[in-house]
């Protein structure tokens, strides 16, 4: 260990941190505004349309809330991992495997399991995500390979496994698109409000964020995770196993990401579609960092990104500004937040 690694960690006041995050988001909106100007459009009008598109009607609000669910769940998982000093980039693959496992149960269990099919499929999703993260964690901890490399590779493998199943045994025949047949309605995720598309996922996601907050700040396990993340030496001295806590955060993240994948297929698409989760895991990392790795802050951060996306899609339809604008805003906010917080986001 060199001196370079034990440089003093910066400390921010709690309020100042929130201010810095908001400042970063504002800056990214300003710079994106300049891009919109360069494209010959009025940024104020564009942002107005994003807001109207996101909150303009009950239906749009519901789309945004549903969209926030996977970001929230996977974002909480990523926040826990980063707290434990595990740079887990495997959310993509874990969400995909969760969706695959849940679809499998939803397809074969709809007739035999009856009403129990939804919890069974969600459990399968969780287990799918956990299984995928256990493989990654094993390679990382047992063989000492860097976690980013392992999880990035495993994302590609997970996508290809999903593609293999959709083009093979699970695919709908003559669909013209790689997807499974639609699930029986008994396997659909229950709605939170009847006669709308709002499913119960948002409740589960908020509960997960609260639970993660409690575990992280008010339990021994959470303390161990934070300690292992903050300082190898301190953890070692306190008798906290770095490997055990690394395994703990990675599998917890796998469980949350797998659940996110299950909810997405059971609640939104009612079938498994190729590429259904594309980008979710990476957005979740941005969400977690925007939330400065605080599980409770993940809730507003995920909602922000989700509403930004639904708003931008509507803006694209209304005034023809491409919705890829959202990725610019997300990427810029992430970079600015990283710069504003520095390594401080990792502190205990």
């Amino acid at each position, binding site marked *: 260990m*060199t*001196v*370079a*690694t034990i*440089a003093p960690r910066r400390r921010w006041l709690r309020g100042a941190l929130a201010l810095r995050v908001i400042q970063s988001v504002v800056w990214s909106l300003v710079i994106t505004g300049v*891009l*919109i100007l*360069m*494209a*010959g*459009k009025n940024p104020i009008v564009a942002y107005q349309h994003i807001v109207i598109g996101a909150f303009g009607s009950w239906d749009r609000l519901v789309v945004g809330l549903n969209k926030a669910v996977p970001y929230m769940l996977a974002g909480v998982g990523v926040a826990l991992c980063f707290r434990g000093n595990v*740079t887990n*980039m495997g959310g993509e693959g874990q969400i995909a495997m969760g969706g695959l496992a849940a679809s499998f149960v939803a397809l074969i269990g709809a007739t035999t399991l009856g009403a129990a099919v939804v919890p069974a499929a969600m459990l399968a999703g969780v287990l799918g995500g956990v299984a995928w993260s256990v493989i990654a964690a094993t*390679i990382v901890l047992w*063989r*000492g*390979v*860097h976690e*980013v*490399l*392992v999880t*990035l*590779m*495993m994302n*590609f*493998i997970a996508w*290809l*496994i999903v*593609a*293999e199943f959709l*083009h*093979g045994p699970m695919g709908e025949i003559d669909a013209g698109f790689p997807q499974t047949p639609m699930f029986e309605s008994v396997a659909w995720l229950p709605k939170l409000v009847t006669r709308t598309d709002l499913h119960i996922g948002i409740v589960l996601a908020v509960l997960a964020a609260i639970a993660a907050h409690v575990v992280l700040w008010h339990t021994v396990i959470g303390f161990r995770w934070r300690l292992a993340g903050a300082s190898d030496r301190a953890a070692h001295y306190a008798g906290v196993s770095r490997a055990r806590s690394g395994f703990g955060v990675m599998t917890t993240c796998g469980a949350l990401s797998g659940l996110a994948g299950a909810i997405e297929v059971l609640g939104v698409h009612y079938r498994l579609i190729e590429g259904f989760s594309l980008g979710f895991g*990476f957005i979740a*990392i*941005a969400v977690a*960092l925007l939330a400065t790795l605080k599980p409770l802050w993940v809730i507003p951060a995920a909602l922000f990104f989700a509403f930004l996306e639904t708003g931008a899609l509507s803006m694209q339809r209304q005034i*023809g*500004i*491409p919705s*890829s*604008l*959202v*990725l*610019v*805003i*997300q*990427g*810029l906010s*992430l*970079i600015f937040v*990283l*710069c504003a917080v*520095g*390594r401080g986001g*990792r502190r205990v």
Partner: protein
Amino acid sequence: MDAALLVDFLSATVRIATPILLAAMGGILIERAGTFAVGLEGMMLSGAFFGVVGAYLSASIVVGLFASCLGGLLFAAIVAIATTRFDTEHMVTGLAANLLALGFTSFALRTIVGRGQAPVIHIPLLQPVPIPILADIPVIGALLFRQPPLTYLAFVAVIAIAIFLRRTRSGLLLTASGENPLALFAAGTDPIRIRFVALLAGGILAGLAGAVLSLQQIGTFTDGMTGGRGYLALAAVIVGRWLPLGTLAGCILFGATEALQLRVQAFNLPVSSYVIQMVPYVAALLVLAGLGRTARLPAAIGQPFRRD
């Protein structure tokens, strides 16, 4: 398997390996200097985009090539400023640059270039330049010496970087910055500057890797056209254990598996193309797990360095 099929397979391998190889060479420079090169994907995409836009607006492919260098440089500079000036976490910064590049290129293609719609752009491709005499050797000539210019550049870059890292003062300084920045600093060289410059140089190579796709192979730009090749380049660097020749081998392996995947039916293989597509990633994982702790990263990679 007859000879024509084999030659076709091998030339496809070279074609597919070329962009990955150029990006991986950029990745070696960046990582040996002590920065994780997750941002390769974004630099590549930006290079592909600016290359096409430059060539389209100026009607000159040379301008396009310069533009693609600048495109790679732009995102390398973003990563460099964030990681050196603001001490940000390298992996996540690279990821942010990738997100940003994906959004920016797609947005700019439609608005700034295309007036609201994705414009239809067709660029005349970079043509093969046969090397006299060598190009006439049977099989090998067509395979190695009748290639477009950027393919030659990629292979020259492998040799140049191998010599640079082992045999030049600057190369040794660069490696030292990734292994022990403190010692380097004590010896009177600023590791932060070296990391910065290495990132910019790597960005140029990654930008040209994007140009391989857009100007040499496809002739237009589509959203996210790099399709994860930047991450594959990263994997090739790891499989090649941060050495130029090893990385070349890794790139050829990845190129061969993808070429094989495209020819599953021609070769009558009993597995699906998706399973074959997994091979490079599984191979990378197995190599990583097999090497374990001996797959030694540059010792100080990812660690911030402060002058104080």
